[in-house]
């Protein structure tokens, strides 16, 4: 519901910019998709595949130009996407290294990882990036400076992850969340500012969370 709420607010903000459109229908569809996927996963983890309907619906909305105010366009920024992938890989790699070397966590790739990655790809990453970067940061940077906008947007996303009931309460996880979510927020905001597209940030976040799921699955 949190992800659906964040995406609905992001859609609402996008719909107020030209070309204006009615956000109710697309919001209901995305909420239904996420709710169905979440319910399905409770019944069978393989139902996580339904989370992938969310990025498909977002792609449809992107091609129709309705998410352009959030930084999603039909053109793919190749250099930005590569940079986003590299940034996510470095951040995720560092997190894996620190978790393995410092805290002795084991890296795993069992089936639950795929379920979690599907959840990230369909709910967690799109909702965070579209809301905190696409809506909040993108709006604020048009009124304030980059530093002010990135500070507010990153602080908001940090609060959202820290209050997430799914986050383990171990001190090293809290510390890691503080460090990596902050860095990911700053990097993704810069990627959006630099490339003008939200796609590099989505890729960076997806790669990072994929790495995170490998640790969290321990």
């Amino acid at each position, binding site marked *: 519901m949190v992800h659906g709420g964040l995406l609905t607010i992001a859609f609402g903000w996008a719909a107020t910019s030209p070309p204006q459109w009615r956000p109710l229908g697309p919001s209901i569809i995305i909420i239904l998709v996420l709710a169905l996927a979440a319910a399905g996963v409770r019944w069978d983890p393989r139902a996580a595949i339904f989370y992938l309907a969310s990025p498909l619906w977002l792609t449809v909305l992107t091609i129709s130009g309705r998410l352009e105010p959030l*930084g999603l*366009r039909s053109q793919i920024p190749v250099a930005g996407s590569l940079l986003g992938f590299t940034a996510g890989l470095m951040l995720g790699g*560092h997190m894996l*290294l*620190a978790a393995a*070397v*410092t*805290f002795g966590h084991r890296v795993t790739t069992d089936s639950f990882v795929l379920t979690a990655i599907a959840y990230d790809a369909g709910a967690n990453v799109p909702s965070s990036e579209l809301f905190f970067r696409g809506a909040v940061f993108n709006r604020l*940077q*048009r*009124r*304030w*400076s*980059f530093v002010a906008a990135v500070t507010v947007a990153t602080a908001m996303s940090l609060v959202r992850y820290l209050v997430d009931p799914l986050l383990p309460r171990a001190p090293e996880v809290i510390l890691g969340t503080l460090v990596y979510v902050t*860095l990911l927020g700053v990097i993704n905001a810069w990627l959006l*500012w630099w490339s*003008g*597209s939200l796609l590099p940030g989505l890729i960076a976040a997806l790669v990072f969370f994929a790495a995170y799921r490998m640790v969290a699955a321990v």
Partner: protein
Amino acid sequence: MIARLQIAGLLALAGCVIAVAVLAGDATAQAASPWRHAYALPVIVGALTFGMIGGTVTALASLMTQAPILFIHVESVGLSAGTLDELVSAAILLVLGPLLGSRVTEARRQSERYATILALQETLADERPLRDALETLRCRLGSRLRADVTLAVRDDDQWIMVGTHAFSGETPPGRAAATAEAVFVPDTGREARPRRVLAAPLSVRGETVGVMTVERAGEFPAGERRAVVVLAFHIGAALENARLAARQRRFADELAEKVHAATDRLAALDRAKSAFVAMASHELRTPLTALVGYSELLATRAFSTDEVRRQAEIMRRQTRRLAAIIDDFLDLSRLERGEAPPLRLADVAVGPALTAAVELLGGPQRTTRVVIDCGPDVSAVRADPQALERILMNLLSNALKYSPAHSAVTVHARRAAAVVEISVEDSGRGIAPDALPRVFEPYFRAPDALGRAPGSGLGLAMVKALVEAHNGRVHIDSTLGIGTRVTLQLPAVP
């Protein structure tokens, strides 16, 4: 040059990171390695090469590289003096990078500002037209500020604009010009990245002489905006200096031109006076010679009564001619002192005045006919009889002087509204167009008239002065090879 330095810095940075990772990455050691201070090297290189961003990124990268090792030490031995030392070293690096980087960035900005001011002074000090200078300045400012720059400058009554920004009442430059205050628009809302626009007035002594508009995609921090406003002030001052310098140059050119023209006029006047002295001597000598010759004849020889009368008549005419020349000199002298010729106004009938003037000039030896066309409806004029006689005598003698033998000089007189118009027309060779505007100037004689006919160069000047003293007007028309017509208008008796 700067790009090469940055590439060199990047390579040095990469080398330092690798070296530090190898040297300081001993995670199994229980005590803090002295090599950990080598982490400062990439941070310093990053800050010195890339400024604020370089310092911050390398400091964060350095911290992230140290963190796994640092946490192992903290976890294994707790907060001992050694681990505290490591934590403080890491914290120092985290402060050092951004701090050093920000100083480097600020120093570079200052240097760029001075270079920009120098560039604009150089550009506006040129003696090129203002539009060309502004176009060059716009290009230079655009590359230095990494932005689209538009300059709108008021030049007397018109605005000169170079650049792409529209200039009207509602646009940022229009508002800046109207309020004399800088106008900042955080985003024009046209593109994915925010495009920020700053319009700064170019002011001189409180007066807005133009507007500079700077539009940039991305960041436009407050410090840079202040710098642009200061830059706009410098541009305003430089424009004013350039304008003053141009005005001084123009003034000096005009002065030199006037001095040159005055020198030419003085030289021409000097030549005219010299010619006049030579001519006047000749003009005075002719009647004097006649007077001396005939008086000697009368004194030394005995003649018949008729011969004595004839010689006396010649002497009388030469005396009148001498008196007329001296009158002209005196009147001219009076005119040059700014005094109007003395007039005794009376009602003078035009027809008889014309006939008398023709008779005074007439001798049986004259080969040119004078035809008078004066209808009975031509009324009298309000004029000094003697002055009118001198006017007509001058015009007629000129016409006769330059007319070919056996031709006719025509004198027309007619009433036109409140004036009587008298024109004297000859069929001489005419006056060249470039000499025509000067024929009423004292001492002036048309170059082709010199040596062809005697004359003082005072006749038409006197005619003009006398006609204008009667509140009349005179003008001359002439066509080379056809002839000349002088027309004068005198107030008619109502």
